């Protein structure tokens, strides 16, 4: 069996591919007519994708006997934050030119930005408390705090949904919303116990 450390190293490299791709496309002049829009949307899509992957780790652990899922969870959560950070920074920098006042005006004016911004602030809290020291220091409150991920997931879907609402273009949004809905439903205690039982049976 391959050691978990080895697997984590590979996952780390693979998780960087979406970022490397943007540099490759930029170098080749293939970011399209509106490069800022392209990189903003790309990093946004990868944020919600990594959010889904992160949320899938615990259910995978319940379903299978393998503890590796849990050991990868923090790294994947931090990748979610990493892409969210890029998404936010591109918007703050290339849409608002680092003008704080203008940025906050936008946060207040547009509801889809409001929820996206709240999700990002919550995610930052989770990222800075993702280390052992914080875990120790926060004790029981740590796991309570990190349940914010469920709120973040709902806000992220809302952010995406409202962004696409103007054009009634919901196809992709519904796919992500469906995945996140399933990942939240399996956390309902009764269902979670059922999933765990599958593991003990096999």
């Amino acid at each position, binding site marked *: 069996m391959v050691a978990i450390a080895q697997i984590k190293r590979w996952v780390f490299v693979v998780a960087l591919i979406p970022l490397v791709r943007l540099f*490759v496309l930029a170098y*080749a002049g293939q*970011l*399209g*007519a*509106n490069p800022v829009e392209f990189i903003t949307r790309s990093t946004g899509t990868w944020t919600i994708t990594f959010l889904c992957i992160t949320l899938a780790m615990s259910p995978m652990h319940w379903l299978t006997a393998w503890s590796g899922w849990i050991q990868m969870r923090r790294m994947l959560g931090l990748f979610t934050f990493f892409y969210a950070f890029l998404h936010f920074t591109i918007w703050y920098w290339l849409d608002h030119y680092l003008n704080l006042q203008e940025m906050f005006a936008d946060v207040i004016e*547009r509801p889809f930005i409001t929820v996206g911004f709240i999700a990002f602030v919550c995610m930052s809290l989770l990222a800075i408390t993702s280390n052992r020291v914080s875990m120790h220091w926060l004790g029981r409150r740590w796991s309570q705090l990190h349940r914010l991920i469920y709120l973040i997931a709902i806000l992220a879907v809302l952010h995406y949904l409202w962004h696409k609402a103007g054009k009634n273009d919901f196809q992709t949004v519904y796919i992500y919303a469906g995945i996140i809905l399933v990942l939240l439903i399996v956390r309902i205690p009764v269902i979670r116990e059922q999933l765990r039982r599958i593991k003990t049976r096999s």
Partner: protein
Amino acid sequence: MTFKDPTIHPSQITPRAIAEDRRQWLKNLALGGAALGMGSWLEREAFAKPVAPREKLPAKLNEPYSTRENQTSYEDATSYNNFYEFGMDKEDPAKFAERLQTRPWTVSIEGMVKKPVTLDIDALLKLAPMEERVYRLRCVEGWSMVIPWNGYALSHLLNRVEPLGSAKYVEFISLADPKQMPGLKRPVLDWPYREGLRMDEAMNPLTLLTFGMYGELLPKQNGAPIRLIVPWKYGFKSSKSLVTIRLTEKQPLTSWSASAPREYGFYSNVNPAVSHPRWSQATERRIDGRGIFAPKIKTEPFNGYGEYVAKLYAGMDLRKFY
């Protein structure tokens, strides 16, 4: 004719040879990626764009009606389009519009006119002298382009059919054929795409019945073979692939205002003072190849065409009639 923009230093522009070299390099990379099933994810438009035969459309430059701003590249203007009949993504029209049959093509001019007529595209091309006009195009989404269009004032066509005194509006209906347009499968809008202008707006000399761009016949993704360009209004007012032009007494219901009346009004004049409910219209991102660090520019009332059209709206509250 070329215009130099002092804000772009020549050293910032990637020389063509190097750009092509990089593209070739990317193609090779994408070929490698294709083996891993990631080809399309890496190549983007490098392979995606079908090569259509390009046909020249001679036209005489109308200088007073042409801006001297930096033009958007042909490549950008033909690969970043909103034409939902071919899909929701900006790249979709360039990928899927190839199926559109632009010949034979007829346009019916009907309604409250003395001489209703159905004209063939060849007859339409010859109806008036072809002009080139370099217009700013401002999309309601907050980006803009500068494009040389080829066409003639819509008033030439309208005068020919002799509008009745009771004609107050002009309705424009675009083609909606599910066999040619895969995007129609999705109920994004109530198809066919419908737009409209008030009679005086339609007769304004800036309103261009358009057959070409960059000195060639319109590419299919840009609304071939015949479209409208109304430069002082948001881009969605400039309907593509027209099949019917109908003069009416009542204000026609347009596709976008039917879909979201609070967001898209009948007039939809470019107006930095009236925000879209979900974003500000004060600035725009000009697509002119300056790259990701180029600052956005201020949006002008009537997209900078106020001297020609502001008078059409004298006494109207443009916050109410957005």
